[in-house]
């Protein structure tokens, strides 16, 4: 029961670079909850050298999400088989920031927290989201004039739409029903004449993110053969 709630909490933790839940990516190696309410979660990644900044964010986010589940008395979230496992696991357990986590580490030290990095990847996700949301409309025959005039409230509800709204909200970009479907990085509506190129850019962004995800899934399956689907 509590374990299900912990798993649902892990569903809300995203790989910031791939913009996919760590549960879908098979990054959760094990998840158990003791009768005393201690949740023990072990994460794993596609390679020994996955970038420590993104790795840290996932472990820290998982710790926060699991700790907030009612009935969980303590969260023990660790990363396995990674070159910075010791630093990351110690830092997250101590609820230290990224800088403090790597202070004095022979891996090298960090000089800044990761908020700006996270936002940069929200920006990428928000652009890719425009392709995910608009592509079915294009396929159904919507032209540049129609797409340029369209607001989010006119778009059929979907998971992709909800996610794009969330990413825009985090960035302070228009995300309500009256927000334009297609916007530039500053939130301005894309004029009709620029719609085709804008959609090309959005698609490139989506292909970039999704191709990265495919590499990661392939490498994870090679590293942990039982994980192959």
């Amino acid at each position, binding site marked *: 029961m509590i374990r299900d709630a912990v798993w649902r909490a892990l569903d809300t933790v995203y790989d910031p670079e791939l913009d996919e839940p760590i549960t879908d990516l098979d990054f959760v190696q094990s998840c158990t909850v003791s009768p005393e309410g201690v949740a023990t979660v072990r994460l794993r990644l596609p390679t020994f050298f996955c970038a420590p900044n993104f790795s840290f964010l996932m472990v820290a986010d998982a710790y926060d999400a699991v700790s907030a589940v009612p009935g969980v008395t303590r969260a023990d979230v660790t990363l396995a088989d990674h070159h910075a496992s010791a630093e990351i696991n110690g830092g997250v357990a101590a609820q230290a920031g990224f800088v403090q986590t790597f202070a004095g580490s022979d891996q090298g030290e960090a000089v800044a927290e990761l908020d700006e990095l996270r936002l940069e990847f929200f920006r990428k996700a928000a652009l890719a989201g425009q392709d995910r949301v608009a592509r079915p409309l294009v396929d159904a025959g919507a032209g540049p004039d129609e797409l340029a005039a369209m607001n989010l409230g006119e778009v059929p509800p979907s998971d992709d739409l909800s996610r794009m709204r969330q990413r825009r909200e985090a960035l302070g970009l228009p995300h309500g029903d009256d927000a334009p479907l297609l916007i530039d990085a500053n939130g301005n509506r894309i004029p009709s004449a620029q719609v085709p190129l804008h959609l090309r850019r959005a698609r490139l962004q989506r292909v970039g993110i999704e191709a*990265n995800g495919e590499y990661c899934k392939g490498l994870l399956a090679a590293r942990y053969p039982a994980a192959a689907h």
Partner: protein
Amino acid sequence: MSYEKDGEKYYIVDAHSHFWDASRENWKPGREEYAKGWIDCFYGYHQLAPPETHWDYEKYLKVTPEDFEQDMFVEGYVDKVIFQSTYLYDWYTEGFNTVDKNGGLKDLLPKYADRIIVNGRFDPREGDAGLKQLEEDAKKWNLKGVKVYTAEWYKDSRGWRLDSPEAYRFLEKCQELGIKNIHAHKGPTIWPLDKDAFSPVDIDAAATDHQDLNFIVEHAAIPRIEDFCFMAVQEPNVYAGLSVVLGGLMHARPKFFAKVMGELLFWVGEDKLTFGSDYNIWTPKWQVEGFVDWQMPDDEAFTDYAKLTTATKKKILGLNAAKLYDIEVPAEFAVDTTAGETGAPGHELVDDTAGAGSQA
């Protein structure tokens, strides 16, 4: 050597190759975990190739010159191979694949010496000593290209930018020495980083300011292919190296291979893509055969992407790189390519005016 299929002849330049030593004897004492972690990571990539091409782990750690000869020149169709070095002295006592180690194959395989092209390297943080070393390497190996790793840490520095004054000194030295191909590794890096270390944006100004140099961004900057394409479309002297794009996706993730190729062909163009097997991660044989047989799928999802012509494949597999490296290609293989020439950058795509044109 070269490759022939259905009456078409392909001149093969493997523009991204290595001859590495990851054997246990070369693992630096105290750093074994990293030396092993590094090669294990590569061995993971190796698994993305067709199963019949997989090697056992022991062979993967270190191949012999005879293996190289077999994989590259006997079975691999390769006419010219270009070595890109990776030092990694932190973990490998003798280095992972240094310029001298790669170049040493010329002596070990004298029969193929004229088919092996050795690239150098530089790191602007090494200052005057680095400049001197570059001069010596250029003389020793007749360098036409170098490989650079901008994300590498060095003493207190967390990487460097190709558009910095320090880097410009080295780029100018390259111009002086006749080195015209700058291969930049934009890809995974290993240390804790405070920002995104994959970003290829520093290529932009460096390429603008050095029009007579060619900047080949290796691995097409995966995992930041979008940043790369947005930048490359503006710069006539920026190229994409396809190593890892073919090796990592063509077999393992064919749909994504098609999408990535479709995007690269649109944004960067067929005259600016170069094949690299990334040996010893993968062998060239299956990549050359597979790519010649490959075509953009007919499914609805790919209709916006261009189909490949035989000429496209010939250029990518060898003729583009041959132009960059002044390799003389026999007439029977030749197809025109604008690689190495100054062309107009795609301002219409940059300024968002292409959309207006495509509506007309």
